[in-house]
């Protein structure tokens, strides 16, 4: 079952869309999620033992109550009848002492276990978040943002539920069951054996529950994720939703997913609805048996009344916690399903990974070399094999029709993907030998999509160089021509851009992301349609800034507006993933090639 070839299909998130899992896959996933839980708990082993000790002592204190009151009835009351108040005083004092101990230990236990639980959650959050950040763009494009968000939110919270409610319930319940079990056997062995008679039945019911609930909870994790995907997509594109009256259709789609989610939960909850009462039923049947047998033995004089009363009280405390164990088990099943998903994401390899033996590049010059670079998406090859040298400091314009491979080349250069064959080198060092920090220090890409983060404009610009002073931030904005519009905003640089910069126009967002790149001050700048939404004066300002900025830098510029191209040192015309023209703008414009044609068309469009 577990040959490497077979397990390979279940690695990572591969199983997520599989409706029916084979038994082997199920076992694999469960083992994986248990392993993750084990790893998360490992640093807390010492604390867990202390917690165990605390809760054990606390349980003994708590259990002393019924024992002492039985003693009170059997010993202190008769003594008092004889005129001896001593035993009553002692027993009462013992009860008060036990109650105080119980309370203090309970407090210690609750706060400690809370601390452990929160530490585990924080570790998990950090780990998944960091891992997701490291995963390649290819993963994000395939997995979709909504699903990743659901992993990082609702799945983590499923574990939180277990830790919140579970840990103390389980530990105290298990210890109640164990200690009371012993007490019952000691108190009266024959009745104790009857009490334990329910166990085989309990195990059988638990096994039944486990078999069915695993799949049921797995479904709930998926149905919740589907809801979150729908949600994030709707509100990410709310303008289009409203403008095209998509609301009613979205309501329908959401209703279907929401109902599906309800059904998934209904199934899981139905299993609990059978499981937990079954535990109660077994407990009650055992209680009736103890009552019957016990009463008969009292009649025969083989058992004291007080003992029977205590026994029945203990029995209640024996089976009630078992319900809690049952509830814990169902929370555990739910959390395991979530951990299955999380461990899947954690298992995804960061294929565009940090090098094991990195080469340091403290002072990048910006020389780029491409040797036999080949790249394709699943269904088609975009770059069949590219050879190219870009000396340090050169500004290169990439020109060509949609689908010619310009953006792919840019993305490979920025190492968003790794080429399937061949090599790209920066200053002679293959990109995959550079640490991410060195690579990003040397090279920055600005795209058409100018994503802004919530926070102020200044925050967003300083994203290019964390810790930059206000002067540096304003300097960058000034250089790029963004300063006037920022100044005109109500709170200037401290204006909150709100959600994804919704308050700013596309052009303004592009200016801010330009300023961000300017501030980053890289040796290589890659611009992929980064000026498309700018108006002419803004573009002019950006270009002026670029002239200064690019003077001593390598640049790779993709632009449909050929004005940007004019100040390039070199123009590459691409077609079907190949470079078909290569030369200075002047040479190419004057020639009869494709670029000359493009340039004429563009010049006409200016009117």
């Amino acid at each position, binding site marked *: 079952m577990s040959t490497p070839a077979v397990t390979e299909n279940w690695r990572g998130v591969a199983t997520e869309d599989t409706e029916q899992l084979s038994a082997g896959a199920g076992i694999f996933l469960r083992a994986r999620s248990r392993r993750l839980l084990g790893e998360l708990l490992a640093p807390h082993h010492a604390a867990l033992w202390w917690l165990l000790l605390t809760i054990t002592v606390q349980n003994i204190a708590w259990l002393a109550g019924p024992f002492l009151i039985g003693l009170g009835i059997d010993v202190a009351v008769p003594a008092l009848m004889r005129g001896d108040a001593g035993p009553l005083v002692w027993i009462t004092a013992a009860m008060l002492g036990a109650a105080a101990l119980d309370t203090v230990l309970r407090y210690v236990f609750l706060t400690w276990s809370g601390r452990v639980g929160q530490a585990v959650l924080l570790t998990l959050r950090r780990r998944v978040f960091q891992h997701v950040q490291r995963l390649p763009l290819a993963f994000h494009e395939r997995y979709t943002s909504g699903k990743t968000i659901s992993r*990082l939110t609702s799945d983590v919270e499923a574990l939180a539920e277990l830790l919140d409610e579970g840990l103390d319930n389980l530990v105290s319940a298990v210890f109640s069951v164990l200690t009371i079990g012993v007490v019952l056997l000691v108190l009266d062995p024959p009745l104790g054996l009857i009490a334990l008679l329910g166990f085989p039945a309990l195990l059988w019911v638990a096994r039944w529950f486990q078999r069915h609930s695993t799949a049921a909870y797995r479904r709930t994790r998926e149905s919740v994720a589907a809801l979150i995907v729908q949600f994030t997509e709707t509100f990410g594109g709310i*303008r289009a939703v409203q403008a095209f009256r998509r609301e009613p259709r979205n309501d329908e789609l959401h209703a279907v997913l929401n109902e599906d989610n*309800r059904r998934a939960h209904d199934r899981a909850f139905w299993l609990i609805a059978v499981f937990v*009462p079954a535990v109660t039923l077994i407990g009650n049947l055992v209680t009736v048996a103890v009552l019957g047998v016990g009463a008969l033995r009292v009649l025969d004089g083989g058992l004291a009344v007080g003992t029977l009363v205590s026994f029945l009280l203990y029995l*209640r405390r024996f089976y009630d916690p078992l319900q809690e164990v049952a509830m814990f088990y169902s929370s555990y099943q739910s959390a395991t399903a979530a951990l299955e998903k999380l461990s899947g994401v954690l298992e995804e390899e960061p294929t565009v990974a940090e090098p094991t033996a990195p080469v340091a590049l403290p002072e990048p010059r910006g020389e780029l070399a491409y040797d036999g670079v080949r790249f394709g998406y699943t269904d088609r090859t975009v770059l069949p094999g590219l050879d190219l040298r870009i000396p340090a400091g050169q500004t290169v314009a990439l020109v060509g029709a949609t689908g010619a491979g310009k953006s792919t080349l840019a993305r490979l250069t920025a190492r968003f993907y790794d080429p399937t064959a061949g090599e790209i080198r920066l200053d002679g060092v293959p990109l995959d030998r550079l640490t991410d920090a060195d690579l990003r220090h040397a090279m920055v890409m600005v795209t058409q999509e100018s994503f802004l983060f919530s926070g102020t404009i200044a925050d967003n610009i300083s994203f290019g160089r964390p810790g930059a002073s206000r002067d540096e931030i304003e300097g960058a904005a000034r250089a790029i021509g963004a300063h006037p519009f920022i100044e005109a905003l109500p709170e200037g640089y401290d204006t909150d851009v709100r959600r994804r910069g919704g308050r700013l126009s596309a052009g303004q967002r592009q200016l801010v992301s330009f300023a961000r790149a300017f501030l980053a001050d890289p040796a290589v700048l890659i611009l992929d349609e980064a000026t498309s939404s700018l*108006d002419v004066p803004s573009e002019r300002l950006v270009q002026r800034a670029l002239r200064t900025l690019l003077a001593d830098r390598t640049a790779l510029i993709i632009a449909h507006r050929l004005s940007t191209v004019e100040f390039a040192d070199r123009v590459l015309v691409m077609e079907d993933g190949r470079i078909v023209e290569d030369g200075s703008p002047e040479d190419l414009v004057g020639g009869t090639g494709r670029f000359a044609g493009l340039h004429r068309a563009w010049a006409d469009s200016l009117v």
Partner: protein
Amino acid sequence: MNDPASQPLPADGRGRLSALLRLWPFARPYRGMIALTFGGALLATLAQLAVPLITAAIVDGPIAAHDRAGLIPLIGLALVFGIAEAALFFLRRWAMNKSCLQIERDLRDTLYARLQRLPVAFHDRWASGQLLSRATTDVSTVRRFVGFGAVFLAVNLVTCVVVLALLLVRYWPLGLAVLLTTVPLSGLALRWERRYNVQARSVQDQQGELTTDVEEAVQGIRVVKSLGRSGLVFDRYDAKATRLRTLQLKKVRTLALLWCVFELHPQLTLAMILVGGAVAVHAGALTVGGLVGFVALFTVLLWPILSLGFLFAFAQEAASACDRIGELLDAPITVTDRPGVRPASLGSPARLRFEGAGFTYPGSTSPVLDGIDLEIAPGETVALVGATGSGKTTLTALVGRLYDVTAGRVTLDGVDIRDLPLTQLRSVVAAAFEDATLFSMSVRENLTLGRPDASEADVEEALRVAQAEFVHDLPWGLATRIGEQGLSLSGGQRQRLALARAVLGRPSVLVLDDPLSALDVHTEKLVERALREVLAGTTALVVAHRPSTVLLADRVALLAGGRIAAVGRHTDLLADVPAYRNLLAQDSELAEVPS
């Protein structure tokens, strides 16, 4: 912190369980099931009482009288009650699942529908993570409370009352003493519950913040990666996650205190009962059997009393989740149909007029648009030109009422657009925005988003106009799923599809926001040619950054300082208005720039 969620609420909005009352409309349809849940739980609890009572009866009856035969009916009764308890337990859980999961579903559907209809201005203001965390975490908290907390809170309170009454009946002096002990308990609990409510709220708000960070880190992954700022983004997230832990631990400490008080109370009371009972037995006021029964009865209360502590806390948590959901449900849908609006008969194409139209963003004092007067005749195309940030995009958003004017009005054929039903307005006005938003569905569904009844010929024509015939080459043609969960398209391809969507079915009013920005020169030329035919038959407002786009228009309006600074033909404006020339004339540029 400008997030509306973290702004302080009015003092009376905090710490009130009455927030839970607003759940009633959602619970109402399932009241039968809820009653069944409650009844099942109550009866099951009463069935639990049977065992101690029967035990006492056995001790005082058959055992005292040495009556073996008398045991049988009592044991039989215990058996019946034992089975009944489990059956009722099942009934309670089954009914609970039905009601609380349906309430959760309805609540979430309502919330989603409401959010979709809240104005764009609302969405500009709210971090989407806050919306998501309310629709998922908070709604689930409410569900868990309705299904579990509320039922047991009620049942356990009833149990306490019933058992106290029974205790009073059994031996009133001791019963009264037990009753009195609940007074200091309630007082202490009340104080801590309030504190807990505030802490629960801050945890929920922080969860929303964290969700926002997750969303941004995931959706902005390209920017994060290209600037190599994973470390920075992680540090931010980490700070928020660590803060969440701190807040959670505060909450845990309050809960632990509450728990301890409710755990200590019944134990102290039990000790008191022993002393009081022993004295009473000594005085001959109570039999030993009576004391046993009293104690057995009281031990039934151990769990209900203990659980009240965290059930009240749970109620507080649910109440603050309700508050958070309520804040969204109560947010005013400002852009909506006025009462009594009726569809007007509009010409196709219609006449679009801005009359003194102004717009100020909520919370801002300076208007973005101020006294816009502009008329676009039926079938006319007007290009809107202006510097970055001059309010062009805002102006286009006014036509489809994505924002409502804050001054003046916008009319179609003389009818104020706010007097038109929103569905009519938005079917008359079609738009393509700067960000070409495509959804995760088939190409066809994306295209026919606003016009589900469009014919095949309409679709083909729209694709031709937008030069988007490339979709036929996709693996499954028009049925190919695109968007985030489907095939990814280039920026230019997305923009062409968004354009095709806007021109589909030749709308009578067309609003295009820089519709050709991502196209290459060659494609742009082809689109322009085809678009010209469409524009001839529609009233259009086109935001333009390029001369080529401007040439699509019959007239040009220059927007500056929130006003229409000039209107006229392109060539005239180019000749007469320096500001306009500066915006559109590309050639002069570099010569005048000192380098």
